[in-house]
């Protein structure tokens, strides 16, 4: 095939005409150009505008998504905090019903991984063996030894610690003891019992040591019925109280003494007032024989 003849300049005239037109266009008033080109501009740039809008929308949606995720996380935390407050205030237990003795932790038994704590209060402050020890978050343990100015606390993490627990939602009871790691387990719960992950376990008050309604932990794992061997379900709890984080505790030393309101003074009669003022003796009884 023959190549096009490059010397063919038939279109040269046209080139020059359009060159002239373009030069003339350069010097037309800007407002006229704007008016004339508004519509063609919109048409020619429509695909670009549409695609830019599309990508902008994606970007906006991503930002919105990110913002909403943050908001959701914040609200979840707020929700959990409020639930905890409601549980403590309006729930099972009102701590104002008890006399609480505040104590500082002055010693920890490192060898047993926080199983025992030493407090700076003792018998002199009214502490006795088997008194419950708590914090704002929940149960810490119980007093097992008392000297005059110090007390030894057996925490929930101790091997021998057993607390009668109960599911706050389903009221299923069991015994809470330590498990491996920083975890507790709820024992003696039958395999068909209604326990779900996220449930709160509180003290049931059955042991006689801890009053009913103190927070113990949250269910983080339950063994399936199909996998359960035997009668009982294995339930793992995450304790609300981190033994390593606490610095001070409260010991429930007994029920609060309810002070009776002062009785209103009896209004004295006129005769009594006069008698007081004049110191008049009551009239003597005349005995007639």
């Amino acid at each position: 095939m023959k190549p096009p003849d490059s010397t063919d300049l038939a279109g040269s005239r046209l080139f020059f005409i359009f060159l002239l037109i373009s030069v003339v266009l350069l010097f037309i008033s800007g407002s006229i150009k704007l008016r004339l080109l508004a519509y063609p501009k919109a048409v020619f740039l429509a695909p670009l505008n549409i695609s830019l809008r599309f990508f902008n929308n994606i970007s906006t949606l991503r930002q919105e998504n990110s913002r909403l995720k943050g908001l959701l996380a914040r609200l979840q935390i707020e929700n959990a905090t409020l639930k905890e407050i409601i549980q403590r205030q309006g729930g099972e237990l009102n701590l104002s019903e008890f006399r609480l003795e505040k104590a500082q932790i002055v010693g920890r038994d490192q060898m047993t991984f926080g199983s025992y704590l030493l407090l700076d209060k003792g018998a002199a402050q009214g502490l006795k063996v088997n008194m419950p020890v708590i914090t704002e978050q929940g149960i810490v343990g119980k007093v097992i030894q008392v000297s005059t100015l110090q007390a030894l606390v057996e925490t929930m993490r101790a091997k021998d610690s057993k607390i009668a627990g109960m599911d706050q939602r389903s009221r299923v009871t069991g015994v809470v003891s330590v498990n491996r790691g920083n975890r507790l387990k709820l024992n003696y719960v039958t395999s068909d019992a209604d326990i779900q992950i996220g449930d709160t376990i509180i003290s049931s008050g059955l042991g006689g040591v801890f009053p009913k309604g103190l927070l113990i932990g949250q269910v983080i794992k339950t063994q399936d019925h199909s996998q359960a061997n035997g009668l009982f379900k294995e339930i793992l709890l995450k304790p609300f109280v981190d033994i390593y984080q606490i610095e001070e505790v409260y010991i429930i030393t007994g029920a609060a003494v309810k002070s009776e309101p002062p009785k209103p003074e009896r209004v004295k009669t006129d005769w009594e007032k006069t008698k007081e003022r004049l110191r008049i003796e009551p009239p003597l009884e005349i005995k007639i024989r």
Partner: protein
Amino acid sequence: MRTFFRFLIIYLLFLLQTGIGRYAPDLVLLAVLIFALSAAPKTTLGLSLFAGFCLDLVNPMTFGFNLLICLITGFGIQSLQKLVYYGHRYLFLFLLIVLGLKYGLGFLIFGAIPPIPEIIVSGLITLILVLPFNFIFDRLVANPWRIG
């Protein structure tokens, strides 16, 4: 059909160049230059007009300027075909001349040129794209008479 593809490519490149915005390479001008080396004079004229019109739409206040540049490019390259049959070998040189003409005329007419960094970045990217674009356009809209 080949002509239609050329127009379509110019339009798509125009959208791409406009979408990139600042530091965008002169893709449309590059396409006009490459097509002018292989297309017939009338087709080149049409392509130049279309490319210039598209580019001027983005900035209506300087309407006519890009039209002028594209027409000069198209016409110039077409005329050079007389002297250099296989002009693709001189693409870099042609492109440099065209870019120089564009900024030089811009300075002469409007008394201003874009910031130097923009010119350098845009020009460099355009120069880098010369060979790939030439290769791609050759494959897409190659003329059967083209040899070697």
